[in-house]
């Protein structure tokens, strides 16, 4: 039978012998030394998790951007190929001119039923080609003007000036934004397509 004492004293006595031995103590002190010698900052695990999350977000944004770009390029290409097919076919058919004349102003005046204003672009006719006349046509189902020129060597070229919905015009190269006209070869015809002053322009001439 041990001596009786107040409960508090008995509990204190019970724990008085509870101590870490030297080996355990050294292990815990060493554990702290190793941790304190590590570079300061957030726990590595958390940092990597944050880095991973940021990287995932960045990669997602990049992939969304590339997907958007790819979609735009694909849509742009699809539209321009369709226009190139259309104007090349028109060029080959050489349907009769509805108005003949070598004065651009006179020929332009004929196209009064268009729902857009024809624009005289510096590219038109290349200077050494003679205007033969024009006729109504359509580009992608929308009324447009077709002008026919003849060069000194007798070769014919046809020019198309029309309009398209704004979201489609945005897909076409704009020389004003330092984007050269897109070039296609369709059925032996060289076709250039671009946008200018809010209109779509196309030029078709023999590729030879």
């Amino acid at each position, binding site marked *: 039978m041990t001596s009786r004492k107040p*409960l508090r004293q008995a*509990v204190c006595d019970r*724990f008085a012998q509870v*101590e870490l031995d030297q080996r355990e103590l050294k*292990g815990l002190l060493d554990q702290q030394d190793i941790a304190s010698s590590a570079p300061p900052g957030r726990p590595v695990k958390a940092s990597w998790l944050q880095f991973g999350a940021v990287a995932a977000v960045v990669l997602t944004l990049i992939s969304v951007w590339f997907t958007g770009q790819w979609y735009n390029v694909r849509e742009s290409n699809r539209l321009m190929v369709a226009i190139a097919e259309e104007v090349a076919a028109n060029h080959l058919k050489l349907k009769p001119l509805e108005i003949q004349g070598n004065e651009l102003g006179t020929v332009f005046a004929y196209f009064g039923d268009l729902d857009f204003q024809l624009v005289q672009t510096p590219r038109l006719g290349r200077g050494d080609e003679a205007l033969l006349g024009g006729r109504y046509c359509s580009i992608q189902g929308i009324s447009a003007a077709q002008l026919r020129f003849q060069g000194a060597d007798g070769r014919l070229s046809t020019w198309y000036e029309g309009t398209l919905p704004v979201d489609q015009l945005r897909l076409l190269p704009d020389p004003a934004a330092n984007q050269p006209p897109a070039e296609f070869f369709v059925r032996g015809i060289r076709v250039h397509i671009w946008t200018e002053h809010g209109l779509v322009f196309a030029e078709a001439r023999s590729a030879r």
Partner: protein
Amino acid sequence: MFDQQDLNSLFRYCHALCDARQDACDLLQSGVERCLRAPPEDPERRLPYARRVIRNLRYDELRRQRLVAFEPLDDESFITELSFNSLESIIIDQDELEHAWRSMTVVEREILYLWAVEGFTAEEVAAQLERPKGSILSIIHRMRKRLQRPPSINKGASRA
């Protein structure tokens, strides 16, 4: 962060929670590791912080083993006046304490340790354990009744 004195104090706390030397040592090591990974904002409060970390670790472990006993709350109206004063008058020998200690729950051992060894008041114990003061007083009340029984009645299976 922790000097030799701190570590021994925390080790005794771990021992009160585990009542086994090796378990206490493992618990202390895990607690120190956790504190080093996420240090307290106030270095002066490192010991209360470490005790809370250690306590959470121990209770997580007990929950995994389904060994945590839920303490029913007694009628607090008459025990609020008792506080730890009711324990001060208990006279006991070491054998009786050992018997009683083995029959105590982990919460009871923790409360008794914080009061007797660390000198905590009931309010401080309640804050450390993050429990209402009434709940702590209720546990003290039950402990007192058990500690005042004859030793033969105290003998029983050890509880977590």
